[in-house]
């Protein structure tokens, strides 16, 4: 007979969980469920569905957290390689929907760009770690290529939001690895200089989004509609908000995509400035914990991975809230841990699983 010892099971379950990070994350996820319940018009089914998404993602997180960073590192090249192949597959045989070629049908429809959100920082961290001793300009050059290849493919799809996030994650890895300031400034200069070229390469709808940001009233029923309505939602929320379920913008259908990309407008309308500041604070807690994990991480690989994941998470939050409040153009970026959707939830939590793995395997490495 096997003796079941609850304490041992608990230990086994929690050994590789960072309780601080988890509790901050759970706070965000709880806020997410609360807003979602209101945003769906008190649709218990959809809210329960999101809880299931979270559960699945938490299991995935737990599994990844139990894998040691060394093992994770070993997965970097195959995962990255597979992801790149799939992206090429998308470019060649992908399904088109809503005017974008993002999906690949291999029995089930998958979105390889989602996988690249983790594969790119993983790959860069692994590569830069391998070249740690001799890290020179040529290595950075290779790293940049490793970044540009998937980003280029994703921009072509087109999926500006994901491309932006992956670029950011790659950039964070390079930046934290010590890419020289001169090169960074140089890149910024090149970026600025190439803006007109980029502009000419952009799709009409992408240009429209940027123009709309400058003056939303130009096209109030078209591209400007989202920004105008979400600004009205936030602004009319005032300091303490209209209260749970009482957002008129939300409940009278004025807010588009209110369960996904624009869920923050619902939150801001119903909970006001106070709610927004609380949300920012919780995000800072999650990000802060992530940065602490990165700072304490023993190897370059784990440091770069942890740093990149955490800062990318920040970027998610900033871009989404910036877009909803009208200071950034509308790009398809969900509010992390809050927007409705299973895929991004899993990606995010697998990332956090890696953070936890790095944090909880640290002592083992040192010892």
């Amino acid at each position, binding site marked *: 007979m096997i003796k079941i010892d609850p304490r041992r099971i608990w230990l086994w379950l929690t050994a590789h969980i960072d309780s601080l990070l988890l509790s901050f994350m759970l706070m965000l996820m709880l806020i997410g469920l609360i807003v979602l319940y209101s945003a769906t018009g008190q649709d218990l089914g959809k809210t329960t569905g999101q809880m299931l998404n979270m559960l699945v993602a938490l299991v995935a997180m737990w599994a990844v957290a139990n894998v040691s960073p060394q093992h994770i590192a070993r997965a970097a090249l195959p995962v990255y390689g597979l992801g790149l192949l799939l992206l090429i597959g998308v470019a060649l045989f992908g399904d088109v929907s809503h005017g974008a070629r993002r999906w690949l049908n291999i029995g089930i429809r998958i979105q390889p760009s989602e996988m690249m959100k983790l594969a790119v920082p993983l790959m860069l961290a692994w590569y830069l770690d391998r070249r740690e001793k001799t890290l020179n300009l040529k290595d950075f050059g290779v790293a940049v290529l490793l970044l540009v290849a998937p980003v280029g493919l994703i921009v072509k799809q087109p999926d500006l939001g994901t491309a932006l996030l992956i670029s950011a994650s790659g950039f*964070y890895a390079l*930046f*934290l690895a*010590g890419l020289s300031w001169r090169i960074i400034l140089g890149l910024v200069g090149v970026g600025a200089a190439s803006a007109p070229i980029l502009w000419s390469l952009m799709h009409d709808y992408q240009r429209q989004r940027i123009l709309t940001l400058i003056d939303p009233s130009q096209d109030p*029923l078209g591209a400007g509609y989202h920004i105008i*309505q979400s*600004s*009205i*939602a*936030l*602004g*009319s*929320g*005032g*300091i303490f908000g209209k209260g749970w379920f009482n957002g*008129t*913008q939300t409940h*009278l*259908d*004025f807010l588009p995509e209110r369960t996904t990309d624009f869920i923050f407008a619902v939150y*801001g309308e119903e909970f*006001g*400035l106070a709610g*927004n*500041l609380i949300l*920012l604070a919780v*995000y*800072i807690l999650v*990000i*802060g914990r992530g*940065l602490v994990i*990165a*700072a304490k991480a023993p190897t*370059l690989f784990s*440091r770069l991975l942890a*740093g990149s994941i955490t*800062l990318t998470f*920040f970027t998610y939050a*900033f871009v989404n*809230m*910036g877009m909803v*409040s*009208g*200071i950034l153009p509308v790009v398809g970026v969900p509010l992390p841990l809050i927007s409705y959707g299973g895929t991004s939830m899993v990606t995010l939590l697998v990332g956090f699983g890696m953070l936890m793995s790095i944090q909880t395997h640290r002592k083992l490495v040192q010892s």
Partner: protein
Amino acid sequence: MNRPTELRNHQRELYYFRWRLGIAAAGAILLFTLLAGRFFFLQVVQHEYFHTLAENNRISIVPVVPNRGLILDRNGIVLAHNYSAYTLEITPSKIKDLEATINGLAALVDIQPRDRKRFKKLLEESRNFESLPIRARLNDVEVARFTANRFRFPGVDIKARLFRHYPKGELASHAIGHIGRINEADLDRLEASEDMANYRGSDHIGKLGIEQSYEKQLHGVTGFDQVETDAGGRAIRTLSRRAPVSGSDLTLTLDSRLQEVAEKAFGQYRGALVAIDPKSGEVLAFISRPGFDPNLFIDGIDPVNWDALNNSLDKPLNNRALRGQYPPGSTFKPFMALAGLELGKRTPSYTISDPGFYTLPGNAHHYRDWKKGGHGSVDLHKSIVISCDTYYYGLGVDLGIDNITNFIGQFGFGRKTGIDIEGETSGLIPSREWKMKRYKQKWYTGDTVSASIGQGYNLATPLQLAFATAVLANNGIVIRPHLVRSILDAVTNQVRTVPAAKPVATLAFKPENLELVRKAMIDVTQPGGTAARVGVGAPYLTAGKTGTAQVIAIKQTEKYVESRVSERNRDHALFIAYAPADDPKIAMAILVENGGHGGSTAGPIARTVLDYFLLGKEPPPPVPLVPPTEAPEEEHD
């Protein structure tokens, strides 16, 4: 000894990494602070502004259109009412691709090309925020089919609306008029009159007749609902309401049965009839033939019907009673006779010998009497009974044009009667000043000669003739003719009588002079008179006078022979009458276009109307009235 270096490297690397991490963290904090600042700006600084926008988003003011007042005849018979039906309406401002939307709707609801055309026209004329009907009067199946698919058509809705309907169709259409959709011109007028707010939500406005002139009373006061709407513009719930005030019901002076009898009496003839109660000024019948169906105009007339009405040779849209101007011809003579008596230019016994023409001193021109060879010895009484022209040529010259103008003008000739519908024309009695102004010519005595028998420059509308007859019948008491008898206020439920019933003037004529004219007019409808038919076997006495208005000029040497003149160029027949002659209850004027002589075509109509009005006698089943091919000489006037 690699290890210390490595360690140092490691330490330096870690230090360097943490430094960069710190920079990144600072950047993150900075950007979050920026966000917090943006939130503060939106949610605190601009809160009021966005709050207003959200409320405007949420709340819209929906006008509630009042029920338009009913129009009833003097006996309470409904002439205009409202009924409820469903319309399919599109709010163009909420729709990106109108064409596609209409095509989509056409799959559910029968939409004809003419519906599309009409919609396009409405779209051009409308304010863009209002909803416009694409189809009116949906049936139940169509309503159900659209309702099931409503979610596919934001900006399209079914509305229950009240429709105006004129149950009697053509009956009295020229008096009742009709409503129609508000167009640009109406909008300008509404804006100028500051009534605009009351018309938010109204699509229709009175365009003609009573519907137009009593628009203010009929329309009522628009109410308002404050409703919460969703992004599709659909009302979710009503927050508050100010109820509309229904328009007032109008009771007309018209007797719709009399109107019907009279309209039927016209048969195929074109013309007009106005009957007035001389003691009250109430218009009992107001006819212009042919009429038109006012129901066609309510939601914009379709091109086919419009062409038919507008291009018809019969001009059914022309309000002959109100706007048609005709030479009054011999119907002028009773008034001239009264002028001669009142101004001392004639005595009852003054007699002329009529050779069949009149000449002015020093001029060979023959002013012909209608009867070749003349009427022999003619006094005032006979001059009216047999309608002697020669008598009046001389009388007119003796009176002079100034006296004629002034005296005849008292009966309302040459100016509007002031009836309570718009568009009246004023007719014309010529004067020296008028001719100088109009033709830059002095007045000739010859002009006076033709003016004396109501020809020449003289013009009068059938309404004016009826009005003048009513004044004569009422012994000179002038009461403005009016079509609305009373107004039932929808709020207080009180009936207000129209103040027009009061006399506006009393013309002081000597009773014996009036009596002389009356007697002569009675004998017009007796054997030997020009309208003997009118009085045959009637148990009441009718005072009347026939008249003929020339359509084409006849040369001095020619004789007018009716059968030789094409139908449209024949003379217009006129007849004025009041009855019973000793206590007048009805005064009227009848015009029959191209009807020949007053006695033969207008007279029977008068008899039918009088028999119905005074005796309640239903007219015999209609005998098709055809224009006579040859008229007996003695009926010419």
